[in-house]
């Protein structure tokens, strides 16, 4: 006989959400299966590939290593919530996302959500990273297609643009 | 006359020949002619090989045309990854 499902209340990408989960379900499963947010991917289920990276109260985590129940009362940000909201409606593409596209920093795209979240976390704590610091900041994410070169360039370029925007006081 | 190179493993079936001259307008006709001259050879070649005609590899070459001076090699089939 299976255990009773748990009711969890949290904020995901700025929205209040409520979902049911099994005690052993991971946050990754809850996001994908209960909330329909399939942008976060499962590559391994054991916290080794970073494809499931999300921000939990601003901290970068592998959502496959977080129990869904642990999200109670907390703030989760996924790739779906990375772009800035405009006019309270649809999201356009943020700087990081645009730079990934300009630099062709993705080929198959499966690791891209995880890298965007990791890069977002990196730039939030270090607005002027060196190449080495960028590489360190994304070493929890595996990419098999690109060899990382264009990803690193995209993140460095995004950092430049974000610094410029901040210095210029915004648009 | 197309010049046909026989793979080593099948030379025994071709009377020891390394190279044969065959008058054929396409690969199908070539195989039929080889089968006619050496029963079993044409079938063996048709089964597991790709064909290179004048340097270009064709995995499924049945009706590929042959020029009067074409050179034909039979090769193992090769898979591709990426």
């Amino acid at each position, binding site marked *: 006989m299976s255990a009773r499902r748990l009711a969890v209340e949290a904020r995901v990408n700025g929205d209040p959400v409520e979902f049911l989960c*099994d005690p052993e379900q991971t946050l990754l499963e809850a996001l994908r299966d209960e909330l329909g947010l*399939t*942008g*976060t*991917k*499962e*590559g*391994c289920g*054991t916290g080794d*590939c970073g494809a499931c990276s999300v921000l939990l109260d601003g901290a970068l985590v592998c959502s496959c290593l977080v129990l869904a129940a642990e999200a109670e009362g907390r703030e989760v940000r*996924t*790739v779906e919530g*990375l*772009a800035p909201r405009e006019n309270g409606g649809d*999201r356009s*593409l943020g700087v990081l*996302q645009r730079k990934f*596209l300009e630099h*062709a920093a993705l*080929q*198959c*795209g*499966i690791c*891209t959500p995880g890298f965007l979240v990791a890069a977002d976390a990196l730039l939030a704590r270090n607005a002027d990273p060196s*190449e080495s610091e960028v*590489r*360190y900041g*994304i*070493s*929890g994410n*595996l*990419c*098999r297609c690109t*060899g*990382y070169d*264009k*990803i*690193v*360039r995209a993140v460095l370029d995004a950092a430049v643009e974000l610094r410029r925007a901040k210095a210029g006081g915004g648009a | 006359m197309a010049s046909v*190179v026989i793979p*080593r*493993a099948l030379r*025994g079936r071709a009377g020891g020949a390394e190279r044969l001259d065959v008058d054929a307008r396409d690969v199908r006709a070539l195989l039929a002619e080889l089968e006619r001259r050496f029963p079993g050879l044409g079938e063996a070649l048709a089964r*597991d090989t790709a064909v*290179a005609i*004048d*340097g*270009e*590899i*064709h*995995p499924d070459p049945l009706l590929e045309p042959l020029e009067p001076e074409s050179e034909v*090699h039979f*090769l*193992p*089939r*090769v*898979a*591709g*990854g*990426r």
Partner: protein
Amino acid sequence: MSEPSEPRAFKWVGQRIVRPDGADKVTGRAAFGADRRLPGMLHGRVLRSPHAHARILRIDASAARALPGVKAVVVGADLPLPRRESGGGGESPVDYRDLAENVLARDKVLYVGHAVAAVAATSARTAEQALRRIAVAYEPLPPVLDLERGLDPDAPVLHDHLFTHGVEPRPTRPSNVAKRTLLERGDVEAGFAAADAVVEGEFRTETVHQGYIEPHAAVAEPAQDGHLTVWCCTQGPFMVRAHVAKLLGLPIGHVKVIPSEIGGGFGGKTTVYVEPIAAALAQRAGRPVRLVMSREDVFRASGPAPASRIRLRVGARRDGRIVAVDASLAYEAGAFPGSPVEAGAMCLLAPYDVEAFRIEALDVCVNKAKTTAYRAPGAPMAAFAAESLLDELAAKLGLDPLELRLRNAAKKDTRAAYGPRYREIGFLETLEAARAHPHWSAPLGANEGRGVACGFWFNGGQSSSASVALNEDGTLSLVAGTPDIGGSRASLALMCAEELDVDPARIRPVIADTETAGYSDMTGGSRVTFATGMAVIEATRALVRQLRERAAKLLDVPVDEVVWKEGAAQPAGGTGRILALEELARDALRTGGPLVGQASLTARGVGPAFATHLVDVSVDPDTGKVDVVRYTAIQDAGKAIHPSYVEGQMQGGVVQGIGWALNEEYVFDAKGQLANPGFLDYRMPVALDVPMIDTVIVEVPNPRHPHGVRGVGEVPIVPPIAAIANAIHAATGLRLRHAPFSPPRVLEALLTRTSGLARAAR
């Protein structure tokens, strides 16, 4: 038949446009194999063998079937047993009996992880409980776990029906050696006798995995009329269709395959694992079934690349000309025959003009997962051996390693080792570019060494279809059937735009399913930009012809008086009315009907790919750790349709090669269990492990493709292992012949040498 273009300045081809599917990929909207949800969908799970080699005596699934929530159970015996025959889907013939037995075991299990049964249930937990209730009685058999054992005539035999092919007279005893192939030219003994320098060695590589981040996933959905839809991540939707139909005993037209976005493949998704099982479960349950492989199962039970042993001897004259080569390649095929050892044999010296050679290739079955294609299958191991020995030869003859290669380089009309003469190729150009590159002469630091190695890949052609439809508003829908695994939508849009002379932003490329796309062979073999590109160009040219005819009718002039220029029908003479694309589109239905160009073709004129790579490594003398300090990859792309994605293929292939060279290997225990079925211990490169990968794209256009394209995707993985081995030698004097050159191996080699020197000194 495609007409080559005159060399010309391209307007759209060569532009670094943002890929049309980009926004979906950076927002999480793009749907991959495991992202599909259907009402009533069941959860599938697979029961796998714990033994590397065993007879299946009995499977009792009654307790599983009785569990509430279980809607279907399937075992091998429930499916039709195909005859032993070839067919279905492309470059190498598939033995359907072997395929069926690999998908679900019948009488024997042949590797740890071999699928034995599967269930579909209303929850994942119920499915897992059901698996535990399936009772399988095995009779374990002694396993064959490496090449030496596989080659041993006294070892247990995996397949009683397998007699070594290619041996005359036909053997009377079954063997684990599935096939022996011999490539020969000239008199090898005379060649060695005349050589001024001879080098030889035995090289080994281990089993490696393609390492795609997305596990295999499928959702199969039955329809009322016996039809079946399969959503899956695959490199070949038409291949999946053929294989599922065959394995389930259905007519091909009853199966529809929808390719999802695919999270990497590199050859590993050119066959089926979960798709037929999901389909069989869905048929029985009457409901959709989702089946996703765990990462552990991907490592244990999908299709890795083979371990290899290559014995090689090379002789050359004083001036560096290679005069004789004697080689024996043995590759582990895994549980069923079909390693790429023959391709390895053909590639071994393909970049060079060699007078005499004898190359033996052995395909050896062992109790491990059946190997599958991995980016230039068979070639990286062969290049490791060949390019290492060329380095040794250069040292022995006192020649610069690039110079040695230049003196032997294949050119147009050189006879390739596998027989035919090359047509226009760009190998020399890559060598010359390497020699002229600043990397070649840059200074090195302490403990650093530089290596060079070259590579070759055949590239593929095969069949592709495309259609280009003009929509009423003047935009275009471009439909193709080869999944976009690396950004090919952008290249297809560029080629179409070039022919129509309109902004590629007006073209929407779509990868359609097997009912709406024309037949296309797989994405793989470095063939999409070449062959699907050719179909796109032909389809667009057909559309342009229709547009000219339509304009001619409207203008009431003969069609030869209308040219297509700058996205409009223009009078050939220069004066007169211009009909823009939008106008023709808007009026199409009133002026004769829809305007659609279509092409289905077998692409001819494939041009092989050549590469020259330079790498600097530093070797830590205390730990044996090898770091890649600088890497330059030079390759002939014919014509880079979208340079960013060509660079991306080069960089990605290089880093896979670096992983293969420095750390990746399957570690098995004595019972054939894989000790490292996860990303933690199957150690692929992360961003900190590699530097920027510099790329140089050389363009020697392929005259037989309308835009000059040569496939680019595979050759980048061919040189790195050898280049790194050569660089380690330059840094340390150590000649390493067993990849990966992981710290324990390098350290042991360093210490052995030190202790050897110390002993000698005493």
